[in-house]
């Protein structure tokens, strides 16, 4: 072997970019934090999907989860907004520039408490966004108080039990108008990748509630958001195979075992049946399944609901194709004649 052998060619995506172009700064979260795994999945998936990093806007609220946009997609514009209110900042940004691919990362404090109102109205509007909830049932950055997604009866590290029922962000998502609703587990690499890819391909609002254990404050016995609990209770509703539009592989499946959902951009979701019949296009069925699982201590994961056809907010508002932000002056300042006409009406 020669000492001057050229190194093997680096792996590049369809844009010719390497995975390093999708990385961010070094994480400052605790070792073993589920959020770090989610950041890694975002890096991989945006790389594999060949998303132009500078077409992405990444936004967050406040909390451990909201620090993570600094740890992925370093070549994308980022906005660390105020607590609970990333949805509205993201809404403004998406209206200003409809060509942006928006990803919002929030926590359960952001989404289920201080920003619950904004979350609900974002759902109603079906804002075109990938909305990730890094859900650990606990306030990490303020050192371990219950969040509103903590299950009834689960305990703090101190042993204090939670006496409030949880808010289920996926149920809210399905009920109020998100057009892709998924739940996953930060430790389920393959599933989370597939869901994130589906969210990139989806036109409309994707809610991804990821159970993401807090190793410091909520990974003990008595927690229902711990690694151990999720290993025992995660119940995927299907096995997801995402086939991007640019990678059209034909695979034959055995009749009756797999359903396929066609995405807006031509990508396909192949959902392979596991233990149960689950139809993610059936809204009431999805709601019922979630209610039933909440009673049986199962954590259903996968793409729980998808409605690819419904118009997103940008379509509902019937905006021009080019970004509003950069429309030329002559398109946004009406003419002298227009002003004169208005003045005449008021005389």
């Amino acid at each position: 072997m020669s000492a001057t052998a050229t190194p093997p060619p680096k792996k590049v995506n369809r844009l010719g970019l390497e995975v390093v172009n999708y990385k961010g700064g070094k994480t400052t979260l605790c070792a073993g934090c589920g959020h770090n795994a989610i950041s890694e999945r975002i890096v991989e998936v945006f790389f594999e999907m060949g998303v132009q990093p500078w077409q992405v806007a990444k936004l967050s609220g406040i909390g451990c989860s909201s620090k993570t946009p600094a740890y992925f997609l370093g070549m994308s514009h980022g906005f660390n907004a105020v607590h609970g209110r990333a949805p509205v900042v993201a809404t403004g940004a998406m209206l200003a520039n409809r060509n942006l691919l928006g990803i919002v990362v929030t926590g359960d404090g952001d989404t289920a408490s201080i920003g619950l109102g904004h979350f609900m109205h974002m759902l109603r509007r079906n804002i075109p966004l990938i909305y990730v909830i890094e859900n650990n049932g606990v306030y990490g950055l303020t050192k371990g108080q219950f969040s509103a997604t903590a299950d009834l009866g689960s305990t703090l590290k101190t042993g204090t039990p939670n006496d409030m029922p949880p808010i289920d962000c996926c149920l809210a998502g399905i009920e109020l108008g998100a057009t892709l609703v998924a739940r996953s587990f930060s430790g389920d690499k393959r599933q989370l990748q597939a869901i994130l890819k589906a969210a990139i391909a989806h036109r409309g609002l994707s809610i991804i509630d990821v159970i993401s254990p807090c190793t410091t404050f909520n990974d003990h016995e008595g927690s229902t958001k711990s690694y151990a609990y999720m290993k025992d209770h995660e119940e995927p509703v299907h096995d997801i195979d995402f086939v991007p539009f640019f990678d059209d592989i034909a695979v034959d499946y055995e009749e009756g075992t797999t359903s396929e959902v066609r995405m807006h951009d031509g990508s396909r979701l192949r959902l392979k049946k596991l233990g149960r019949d689950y139809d993610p296009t059936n809204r009431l069925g999805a709601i019922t399944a979630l209610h039933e699982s909440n009673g049986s201590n199962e954590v259903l994961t996968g793409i729980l609901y998808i409605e690819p056809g419904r118009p997103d907010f940008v379509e509902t508002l019937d905006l021009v194709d080019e970004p509003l932000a950069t429309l030329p002056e002559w398109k946004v300042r009406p003419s002298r004649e227009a002003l004169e006409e208005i003045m005449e009406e008021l005389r």
Partner: protein
Amino acid sequence: MSTLDVPRVAREDAVSDAPRATIINDFSIQVATVNGSGSQTANNVLMRAIFQMGVPVSGKNLFPSNIQGLPTWFTIRASKYGWIGRKKEIDFLVAMNPETAQEDVMKLDGGSAVIYDEPLKLNQLRSDLHFYPVPFDKLVGPVCPEAKLRKLVRNMIYDGVVAHLLGIDLEEIRKALFKQFGPRKAKTAELNWGAVKAGRDYAEQNLAKTDPFRVERMNETAGKLIIDGNAAAALGCMFAGVTVVTWYPITPSSSLMETLIGYLKRYRIDPETKKATFAVVQAEDEIAAVGMVIGAGWAGARAVTATSGPGISLMSEFAGLGYYAEVPAVIVDVQRVGPSTGLPTRTMQGDLLVTAVLSHGDTRHPMLFPSTPVECFSMMGSAFDLAEQFQTPVFVMTDLDLGMNNWMSEPFPYPEKPFDRGKVLSKADLDRLGGFARYKDVDGDGIGYRTLPGTDHPAAAYFTRGSGHNEKAQYTEREDDYKNNVDRLAHKFETMRRRVPSPEVRYNELAEVGLIYCGTSRYAAEESQDQLKREYGLETSLLRLKAYPFTRELVDFINRHQRVYVVEQNRDAQLFSLIKLDTSAEQIAKLRSVRYYSGLPLDARTVTDEIVDQEGL
């Protein structure tokens, strides 16, 4: 409309001591009705008819926070001198509301006139007034066969009576009425026209005029229009190229947004694609409304929200983020009496102090103070330019009086200046520079260069966050980084001092006394200057602030006078306090305060009386 724009007419007749002769074009009419009775139409028609006769006029709607049933008063002031501020004294009362009629009559000065609903027998209350009883119920039946419409049509009758008694040309009433209803409601207009004529006929046959008030044709309103400040600000937004509009309904700002939406649908649909060049969101609350504006401004859009005091309070955290993250935003505050329910339909300059420093930490926000519909229009353009030039939230401080009342106005000049979109680096700029540091003061004015999300360049991105960042927009908790950043922001604010609109200053070489004010206080202050000179021989200079931060002219003005009265519409001397923050001890020693805070628009007499008292005249 500026009172200055109306040429003054010789005023010998006003100071004459001759027995009370006819008083022409110089009086106020107050109509007291019940909210929801359709009186607004009758009042606007009356106001417009006087306007069409060339007489300077203003209309002030004093209404309750209620949809139907509570008392409401509408005051129309006709002034040949062009004074269009509120006049404290009522000369001509139309008493339609049985609940308030007695009190309304008892408050009048002797010699005033009263049109009243005959069964109320108000003429028994006083003997020093001119009474005109009108049997409204008897008159309305024949002109309005449909019983359920009578309540609404009944009010048009007083337009006919007033027109007859004051000598308002009935043809002008007809023109104003049909304009008010528009061609699509011509049938309704016809019905109401019948009521006007019935009122006129009744007055002609039954009422002998004994009061001195008359309207006579002038030529002081040609080319002018009637518009409320909210509509003017809405047009200002549209002609400033606004693209993202967010709001949460709140009195008195809702009509600004509703009017804007109406105009955008008419004038801002792309003619080729029929798609909208604007996005409107009725948000879930004011926090969301301003958050969307911040998000849109960050992404490069001209975005606006309008609100009032309670909304300003809710926007506090985002205002601070906008200041520190340096994001353009335009927020209109149509000030009202608050908080909570407060007096939501009454006016106040009550948010000056809180808005200047809105949020926590060290924050300072620029504010603009329009005083006329023309300024509501033009200052919206200035606000968008300033927001983008300085990459910061800009607050346009109007109030309920300006926003919701109808004002006589000059037509708006078409904005000739192209937009100033501020320091935004394009792909070509980045190709040339290779990269940039978002918060670096390259030009020495405290303003960094920004890029918009979506700029097609690998070096375009930066990370936006609150106050903890260095020049390169990286998170930091280092003492020097924090201090350098806030010092640069302070420097940026100093730069702004030289770029915001300068005050309107009217020096009077004879004056030792100066008046400082902003916004709608101008109407009372300018008229008070006239009263002070005419009645007390006191010469004064005037300075009307148009913006915060204050410019050099303010300090010069204080230096050139011995005593300076800061006139404003709040209890706590908010403008006075802001001025104190920017002036020396020697200058502060010259400052005095005139405050008015009962919820009605400030009137000249109140200002005059207060200054006379403090001057010991």
